[in-house]
């Protein structure tokens, strides 16, 4: 037996058509306004897209909390780091004078900067919290130059959507979207609590991304590339994190 009323037939048909059209439009608009993360596919893609999309929709320009100097942690926790390679130790012995940051990709003026070059740029300091996905946290003062300064100096070409940055070890790399990269608190950090940034905390150069969890704040940064798509890097999921099962967007 099949049971059909004319009203049900018409409403179901219209609702289905509207739903399909609505979803297609929503997906297109979401992509256009940067609301879809690279790891949007798979079982957890829906949740991840909602989290990232909601943040970018409602809090794209929000500032991470900053704290009074009195709240700086006395004993911050450096977390484990891989033992430095010989080349790194040699550079450390010379005070990192030959540390270089390469800026390339979709920029007008690709460049290579030493730490001394970076220190000539406008200095910014912020007292923000490092929050690890494990649950622990600490507060420190971070001193450096906003990434936006370097990107503006290099001159971004139109169409840049992500900034791809990697560490002295090639297996450590990350990407952030252009909003996060140009955010005033996203900091190429060289100093911590009024001293040089210790190696344990990512010295000589760490990219602090205070609106996201600690794992986005990559240590030992040597290379920054402006790109329009993450598809051709690694497995195309935006960073090594989704490849190990972790979310690309770590704002929560």
């Amino acid at each position, binding site marked *: *037996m099949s*049971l*059909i009323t004319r009203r049900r037939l018409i409403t179901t048909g219209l609702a289905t058509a509207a739903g399909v059209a609505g979803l297609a439009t929503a997906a297109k608009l979401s992509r256009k306004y940067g609301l879809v993360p690279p790891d949007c596919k798979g079982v957890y893609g829906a949740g*991840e897209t909602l*989290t990232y999309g909601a943040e970018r929709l409602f809090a794209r320009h*929000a500032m991470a909390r900053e704290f009074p100097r009195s709240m700086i942690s006395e004993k911050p926790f450096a977390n484990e780091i891989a033992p430095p390679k010989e080349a790194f130790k040699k550079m450390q012995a010379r005070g990192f004078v030959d540390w270089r940051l390469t800026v390339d990709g979709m920029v007008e003026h690709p460049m290579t900067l030493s730490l001394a070059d970076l220190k000539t740029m406008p200095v910014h300091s912020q007292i923000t919290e490092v929050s*690890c996905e494990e649950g622990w946290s600490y507060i420190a003062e971070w001193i450096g130059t906003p990434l936006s300064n370097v990107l503006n100096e290099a001159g971004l070409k139109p169409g840049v959507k992500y900034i791809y940055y990697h560490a002295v070890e090639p297996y450590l790399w990350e990407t952030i979207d252009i909003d996060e990269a140009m955010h005033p608190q996203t900091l190429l950090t060289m100093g911590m609590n009024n001293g040089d940034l210790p190696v344990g905390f990512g010295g000589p150069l760490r990219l602090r991304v205070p609106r996201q969890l600690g794992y986005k704040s990559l240590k030992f940064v040597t290379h920054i590339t402006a790109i329009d798509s993450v598809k051709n890097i690694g497995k195309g999921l935006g960073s090594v994190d989704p490849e190990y099962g972790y979310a690309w967007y770590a704002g929560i």
Partner: protein
Amino acid sequence: MIKRLAPGLGGWGSWPPTLTAQNAVRMGRPGRWLCLRHTSSWYPLRVATLSPVRQKTSPRHAAVVRVTHWLTVVAFVALTVTGLEIVISHPRFYWGEVGNVNVKPAFTLPIPASRDTVPTGYKYVMPDQNGWSRYLHFEAAWLLLFTALAYGAWGLVSGHFKRNLVPVRGERGWRAIWARTRKYLRRSPPGRQEEKSYNVLQRVTYLVVIFVLFPLIMWTGLAMSPSFTGAFPATAWLVGGRQTARTLHFFLTWALIAFLVVHVVMIAISGFWRRMRAMTIGRARTEDEL
């Protein structure tokens, strides 16, 4: 099928034919027009008024309650399993804004951790499951949020909260709560009235779970997000900092687990399958079954 409906069709003499009795209940509201397909032809039929016998068995819970209840079950199980999995990576708890292995904890869970940087006293490290646990935790949190919004909006509009959850007039006080508690302690049978409606203890418990525990656990969860607290700093400082939010989030989890255990035990005592039927296909026991 036509044969089963035949007693209600009323013959071709009376046009249009009408459906009556039991089968009509499944076919729509009384007075509604339906098309019945039989051997490649369509017959217009009109659903008859329901018989008084069927009218008595109204659903114990509204469809929205039943659907949102089970969506909440799915979300809650996913959130609890993944939440405890995430806790294992750092089974230490703190008060205030910050806390890490260099800070004295408020308390520590006597379990091994899934990270070797945490001193637990155990010689082994548990497998790290944080990746998928965090993905699923937030996905389930979205499901819970949408379910809560749908249920909350419907509950306000339909009068569900006022009618079914706010204690009835005359039972809004400690005296009524104490009276019903004594009844539980004496293990007296619940009586007919409670077959169709909640007693004062149930109402207060559901109100606390729905309007205190769930909102607080969402709040303390969001108070741990560096991005969310950036947009809404008050979520963190109102509860006393990020680590306090994490510790409260953990306590609230146990409060909800305690509720779940009592809830399921009470259902098992009062008739597990009957209650399951009430929360799924919706029918309560009829008058004559009681």
